[in-house]
């Protein structure tokens, strides 16, 4: 009998027009970096180059900060809040208009499946602008005091895992509260940020309100230490975040951080099992596991370990890994060679330390960077794969006996970003949620995001929240 295989269903790339090279976006215009240095950005699913990206020098960053400062002083700080909001509405609507173009571009630059950029990343990014547009003239109601004042010029550094979405999480609240922005995208994923600059132009956003400087870690470091910046917002690794905290100590700069995690996904024996297994899958394989809030530790009640493991393995056989532009792809490419090596290193430590590795049979493409969805059973808290953030499609499975033990194990980490709880018993869910030291707790769900829902970590997962009313406080001066 012929099997019902899905034919290839590629999304067309004709909707994007990728230039061969890109400049920096400063003061409302694209211009080449001083010194004309550039670097290549590739499609990690194929390894092929997409474009050359400008390498911002210190002088370029100075220019960007100056233009943001001038724009703040002369235009943005004087503009009535409602008018500011209208620019954000325009941006949101244009993002929605050009949604397909952004989705395809993001998939090509990042390696994540088109289904996810189309159904998650881009709609949420537009949503963030729409949501924050409405806050611009309602800040008096936000619990921040009367007429809270913006910081001025904010420096923002975003990661490669959700490029446009992370941009929207940073830029939307910054602008809504009256700040101007100098943003540095991640070096492997600058293209949607640069396309966003076009949206700013189309929306008529005054020049200098948003500036985009592409480059690498040193560009970011220069921005962080720039005396013309009043506030820094950083999303990235915990190590770099700590470095920033040290670097700006005593400078008077405000800082919010959104760092790493090692989220515990707790499955109680009375969980809705099939949905819980879906939640495990979404927790660790969504976005190839390149998620700070990934449910990378499965904490399953020992009484249902076998049942859950069996169902999980069967379900993993259905994961479709391949061309991210194919609409049926579930798992895309790893974003870079460097990240792939890190994943291998940690996964190998799992083997060496005695955990049992398993992956479904699947063929990986030969070009590009790929890693099979993988689970490790028999993991204990003392394994490296239970402590260190892998940032890849690798799940560590641990067990617990009682709710108290689940909470203890879940909290036994310097991280504190996210957690999941699966149970059909409401009181147990709330009891557990109350005790988890995590800034985001998903119950009978995972990896859900919304502009109205504050996101951020306890402990070493960061400082502050993004989204919702609570996320606004990062961008205004609070009198203490």
């Amino acid at each position: 009998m012929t099997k019902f295989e899905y034919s290839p269903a590629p999304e067309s790339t004709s909707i994007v027009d990728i230039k061969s090279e890109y400049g920096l976006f400063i003061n409302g215009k694209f211009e080449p970096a001083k010194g004309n240095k550039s670097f290549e950005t590739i499609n990690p699913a194929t390894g092929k180059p997409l474009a050359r990206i400008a390498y911002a020098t210190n002088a370029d960053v100075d220019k960007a900060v100056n233009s943001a400062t001038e724009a703040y002083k002369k235009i943005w700080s004087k503009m009535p809040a409602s008018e500011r909001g209208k620019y954000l509405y325009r941006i949101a609507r244009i993002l929605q208009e050009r949604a397909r173009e952004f989705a395809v571009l993001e998939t090509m630059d990042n390696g994540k499946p088109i289904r996810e950029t189309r159904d998650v990343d881009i709609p949420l990014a537009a949503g963030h602008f729409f949501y924050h547009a409405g806050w611009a003239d309602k800040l008096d109601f936000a619990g921040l005091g009367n007429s809270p004042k913006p910081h001025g010029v904010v420096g923002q550094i975003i990661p490669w895992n959700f490029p446009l979405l992370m941009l929207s999480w940073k830029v939307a609240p910054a602008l809504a509260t009256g700040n101007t922005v100098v943003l540095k995208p991640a070096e492997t994923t600058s293209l949607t940020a640069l396309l966003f600059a076009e949206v700013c132009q189309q929306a008529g956003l005054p020049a200098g309100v948003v500036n985009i400087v592409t480059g690498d870690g040193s560009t970011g470091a220069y921005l962080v230490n720039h005396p013309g910046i009043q506030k820094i917002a950083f999303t990235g690794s915990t190590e770099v975040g700590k470095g920033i905290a040290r670097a700006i100590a005593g400078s008077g700069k405000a800082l919010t951080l959104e760092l790493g995690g090692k989220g515990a996904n707790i499955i109680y024996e009375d969980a809705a099992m099939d949905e819980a297994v879906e939640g495990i899958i979404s927790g660790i394989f969504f976005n190839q596991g390149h998620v700070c809030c990934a449910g990378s530790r499965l904490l399953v009640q020992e009484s249902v370990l076998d049942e859950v493991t069996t169902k999980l393995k069967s379900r993993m056989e259905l994961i479709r890994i391949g061309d991210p532009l194919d609409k049926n792809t579930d798992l895309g490419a790893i974003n870079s060679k460097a990240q792939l090596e890190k994943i291998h290193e940690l996964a190998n430590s799992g083997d060496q330390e005695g955990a049992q590795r398993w992956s479904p049979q699947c063929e990986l493409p030969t070009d590009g960077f790929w890693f099979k969805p993988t689970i490790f059973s028999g993991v204990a808290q003392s394994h490296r794969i239970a402590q260190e953030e892998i940032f890849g499609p690798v799940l560590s499975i641990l067990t617990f006996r009682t709710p108290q033990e689940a909470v203890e194990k879940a909290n036994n980490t310097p991280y504190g970003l996210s957690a999941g709880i699966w149970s059909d018993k409401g009181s147990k869910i709330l009891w557990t949620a109350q005790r988890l030291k995590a800034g985001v707790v998903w119950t009978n769900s995972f990896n859900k995001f919304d502009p109205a829902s504050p996101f951020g970590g306890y402990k070493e997962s960061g400082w502050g929240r993004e989204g919702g009313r609570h996320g606004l406080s990062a961008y205004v001066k609070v009198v203490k």
Partner: protein
Amino acid sequence: MSRIDVMKTYKLYINGAFPRGESGRVYEVKDSKGKFLGNPCQASRKDLREAVVSARAAQAGWVYSTAYLRGQILYRVAEMMESRKSEFIDVIVASEGKSVSAATNEVSAAIDMWVWYAGWSDKISTIAGSTNQVSGPFYNFTIPEAIGVVAIFASEKSPLLSLVSAVGGVLASGNTCIVIAAEKSPLAAIVLAEVVATSDVPNGVVNILTGKSSELVPWVGSHMDIDAVDVSGLSKKQESEVRIAGADNLKRIHRFTEMQSAQRVLAFVENKTVWHPIGV
């Protein structure tokens, strides 16, 4: 002939008890006229360590008691302060050289401020929490929770008032604390410790150390089990020290200028957002 007073030995307050400093060191405190007042203990890093252990052990019980109970306990502290009013006044007059009426005003203000903070305990999530309108069948709420263990460097300025404002805010939200009293004027802090010890405050919720803040700054900054620090009593340079060392576990660090401020309550919370599906 006037009666010989029984002089007070000023000790540390850790875990509900009044131990001497483990290093055996003390330092001399004189009044505003240079007269000897006492030899408060010079807390060492080991005293700090013990205080953190007690504060951590006490935190789970404190935070999971009801807000109402916490509020009542905090209010009782105010009752005890009121009944010890004259002792506070004496200590302030002696160590700061203020007039009796100025000291009385300060003590009254401190008690009233403590009462203000006590009333916050069961209102924090009402005021600072939210339910969030997400676009999906989910009940989504954000609830502010205590950060955990907070170290407080008390300010030299109006020591009692600033101490009360620092501690009141921290406790109201369910945190526990280690206070490093103002180095030059620590005695009011010790009287406060005695008040706290008689007010049903569980052991370890408040710990008070006296000594040299400069000695303790690096140990507080680097302690991986301190979650947050109030640096209002430190110089800018010391604050930076704490920030740099504190980056190792990303301590939340705050400096306050306002005495009676909602920010003192709201600064030491973490916001937890919970999603729950709505279905049958």
